[in-house]
């Protein structure tokens, strides 16, 4: 069967998809997709949200069946009727949202679904031995007895990979694997993937981050609107070309930004300390000032207190001590701060977590367009909502922010990540606030929308707003900010100009030069 046996291993084909069609009702999610993934390579699949990458991989992994077309694994045509078939064919998948039982140990999670009998003892011993072998072979150290919820996400992801390997995966599909990782964790993941590749595994990497594609893949296929528009050797392409292929037009990757013109201080934080629900201090004695007409960026690895800082300023989280002044007036940070009142005082907030805070996914688009501003008289007729006014207003914002589809009655969950984020931005920016808090503005957002969102943030600055930007994407911080504060372990460990090179900022983010700062 294997016609390519005589040739070099690079031309050995691990997976071939021919003419895959898949539609959901009227939506054609995949159209005549042809894809060849060579054995022992890392193959990137890139495309904007909604381009059909996830659908295609779901077909390969057996979640969906294609309407037309054929799948070949190792040059044999196969019918993948479910994930169990895919696993049997040596295909493993690491989902974007981990499929782990949080309160089980690593070992138990890996064993899950492969217990071999009612009495677990024999199975456990076997899994433990196999786990040790896999860890040694691929350099994937994990404490087998650690409980999942105690582990950082990077390690949890490693467990997912181990799970797939334990089930005998030769071909590993990773769906947006770096979405939840810190830069260091992402680097580590890439080293692991390289290691797996060198052991002969085939890896399919789904992402919308061009940098990752360039850094790690051998070949890259670009999807756009359900079609496979191009496949390139990574070495022979460029970020610009890929971006253009993805979006279908030229994309400005560099942010165009004039000189900042800072005015008076709009937001002032003094000695703020915030504890989380377990009583651990997450923000330690932080002070900062944001002036109108400037963007203050806070860089840091996720989990170093940026989220808590943002929430405390927005009045959502209680601070233990310290003061926050908005336009020179204190806000009650000790718990009496009222997010609704702060909005009226000119504080807008684009939260880090748009799925749980910024939006109610089960609401219609227009209902989300008033979240937090629903007590504005212009949306009300007495105690009743003025539905017509709300929908007209939402439709207008859809137009201004190019929210697609421009259907204000569509459920918010059905919008792509980028469009969801635009719904939040439109709502917060169109209120003409004095201060705007922006958390992770482009997390899970496609390239086309990133450009748009960055432009809007800079427009806010140029309109004289004070912008406080928190992002774990160092590139984003450097591109947008006028000043950069680095946060580590709840403290501000230094202020740098955005031109500071990435390595130096990275060291600060890792807390390395903390002592040097203290001396200054």
């Amino acid at each position, binding site marked *: 069967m294997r016609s390519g046996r005589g040739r070099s291993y690079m031309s050995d084909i691990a997976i071939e998809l021919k003419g895959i069609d898949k539609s*959901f*009702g*009227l*939506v054609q*999610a995949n159209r005549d997709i042809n894809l060849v993934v060579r054995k022992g390579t890392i193959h990137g699949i890139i495309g904007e*949200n*909604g381009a*059909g*990458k*996830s*659908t295609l991989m*779901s077909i390969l992994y057996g*979640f*969906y069946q294609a309407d037309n077309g054929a799948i070949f694994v190792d040059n044999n045509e196969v019918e993948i009727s479910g*994930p*169990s078939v895919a*696993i049997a064919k040596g295909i493993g*998948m690491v989902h*974007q949202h981990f*499929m782990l039982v949080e309160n089980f140990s690593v070992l138990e999670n890996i064993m899950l*679904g492969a217990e071999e009998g009612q009495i677990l003892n024999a199975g456990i011993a076997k899994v433990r031995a196999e786990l040790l072998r896999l860890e040694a072979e691929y350099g994937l150290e994990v404490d087998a007895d650690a409980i999942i919820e105690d582990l950082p996400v990077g390690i949890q992801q490693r467990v997912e990979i181990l799970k797939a390997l334990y089930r005998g995966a030769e071909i590993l599909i990773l*769906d*947006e694997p770096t979405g939840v990782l810190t830069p260091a964790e992402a680097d580590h993941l890439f080293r692991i993937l390289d290691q797996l590749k060198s052991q002969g595994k085939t890896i399919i990497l*789904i992402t919308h981050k061009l940098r990752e594609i360039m850094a790690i893949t051998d070949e890259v296929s670009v999807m756009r609107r359900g079609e496979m528009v191009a496949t390139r050797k990574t070495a022979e392409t460029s970020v610009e070309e890929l971006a253009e292929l993805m979006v279908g037009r030229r994309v400005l990757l560099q942010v165009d930004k004039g000189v900042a013109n800072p005015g008076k201080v709009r937001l002032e934080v003094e000695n703020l300390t915030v504890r989380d629900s377990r009583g651990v201090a997450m923000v330690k004695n932080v002070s900062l000032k944001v002036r109108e007409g400037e963007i203050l960026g806070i860089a840091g690895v996720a989990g170093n207190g940026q989220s808590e800082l943002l929430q405390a300023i*927005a*009045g*959502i989280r209680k601070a233990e001590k310290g003061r926050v002044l908005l336009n020179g007036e204190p806000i009650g940070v000790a718990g009496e701060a*009222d*997010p*609704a*009142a*702060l*909005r009226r005082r000119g504080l807008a*907030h684009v*939260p880090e*977590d748009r799925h*749980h*805070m*910024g*939006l*109610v*996914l*089960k*609401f219609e688009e227009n*209902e989300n367009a*008033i*979240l*937090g501003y*629903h*007590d504005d008289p212009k949306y*009300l007729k007495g*105690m*009743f*909502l003025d*539905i017509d006014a709300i929908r007209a207003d939402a439709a207008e914002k859809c137009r201004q922010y190019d929210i697609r589809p421009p259907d204000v009655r569509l*459920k918010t*969950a*059905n919008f*792509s*990540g980028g469009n969801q984020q635009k719904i939040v931005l439109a709502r917060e920016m169109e209120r003409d606030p004095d201060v705007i808090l922006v958390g992770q503005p482009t997390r899970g957002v496609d390239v086309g929308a990133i450009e748009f969102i960055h432009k809007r943030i800079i427009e806010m600055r140029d309109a004289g707003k004070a912008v406080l930007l928190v992002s774990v994407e160092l590139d984003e911080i450097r591109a947008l900010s006028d000043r950069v504060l680095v946060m580590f372990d709840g403290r501000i460990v230094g202020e740098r100009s955005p031109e500071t090179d990435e390595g130096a900022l990275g060291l600060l983010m890792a807390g390395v030069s903390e002592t040097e700062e203290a001396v200054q």
Partner: protein
Amino acid sequence: MSAPYAKLPAWVDFGLIPLINLIVAFLVAGLVVLLVGENPIRAAGLLVEGAFGYGEGIGFTLYYATNFIFTGLAVAIAFHCGLFNIGGEGQAYVGGLGVALPCLWFDTILPWYLTFPLVILGSMFFGALWALIPGYLQAKRGSHVVITTIMFNFIASSLMVYLLVDVLKPRGSMSPETRTFEEGGQLPRLDWLLEIFGLNIGGAPFNLSFLLALVASFVVWLIVWRTRLGYEIRTRGFSPSAARYAGMKEARIIIVTMMLSGALAGMMAINPIMGEQYRMQLDFVGGAGFVGIAVALMGRSHPAGIIPAAILFGMLYQGGAEISFEMPQISRDMIVIIQGLVILFAGAMEHMFRPAIASFFIAFGGRSGVPAAPASE
């Protein structure tokens, strides 16, 4: 990555799936009937005939449905806020005080149409009061409302026994109930409404509270989908963190919603007390508070679904009584089994047939897609 997610057409979601669940429930119930040696087809005939076959049957069906609309709405509005109010039974029971007291005080002085508004306010007040305490405990202390409302059902039960036996019972009477109200405490029957359709209501206690239930349904729809309060309730129900982000007062929303829920449950007491018995008896609620949970589940917490679901359960109550008349093998308890099966299939196992139906619609070119990919491997 966004999986291609599209929901099923509304008529499938709200029409076909509940219907299939119902049919399966009846098929299984039929097996149970077969098991006790009766003919299930005849039983089904009796059920429908008894509930809808003649004027009096319809009157009874709608009388029972009235109870279930109120309790169903009560559960539904709490659902919208993410609260599971199991205390409808107790809230309706205590709500009875708000019906009985105005009737006892004013039935000889005021005509019924003046007592009625007092009774409405009274029942709402007492029902809301009984839900206020669990609501407060949930909002301020984090005590789970499921636990507290269940406990409050028991407290209500004991409290009402005490009041009926020691306080409200007329001197010299042996039965734990209030005296019978005079004309000012009696709601008119809706015989004229059925006469429009050429039906004779006979002795059925179908009364004005049915129209009140319809008005309440409309008001609930209005509150939930058209007011600022309803917007806050739904936001909190879908996503407490989004509600906090938006600056909504979570504790206030919880307490207000529980009070609304209790008020609706309390209004249920009007139907049996002022509409049928003209007195308050022990255990007049008779499980309607719990049936309300099933009604709300089946009606998808929407008034337009709750009304037909309530009528369905009214049919089971009335037609079930008819079956136990005609088929001595089938006792009242059998009817409860059938009701239980309906609750099981329509409520608890609501999603059992959903994946199959969804894939059917995809296979045959239905206009939309499937729910997101299954989360298992």
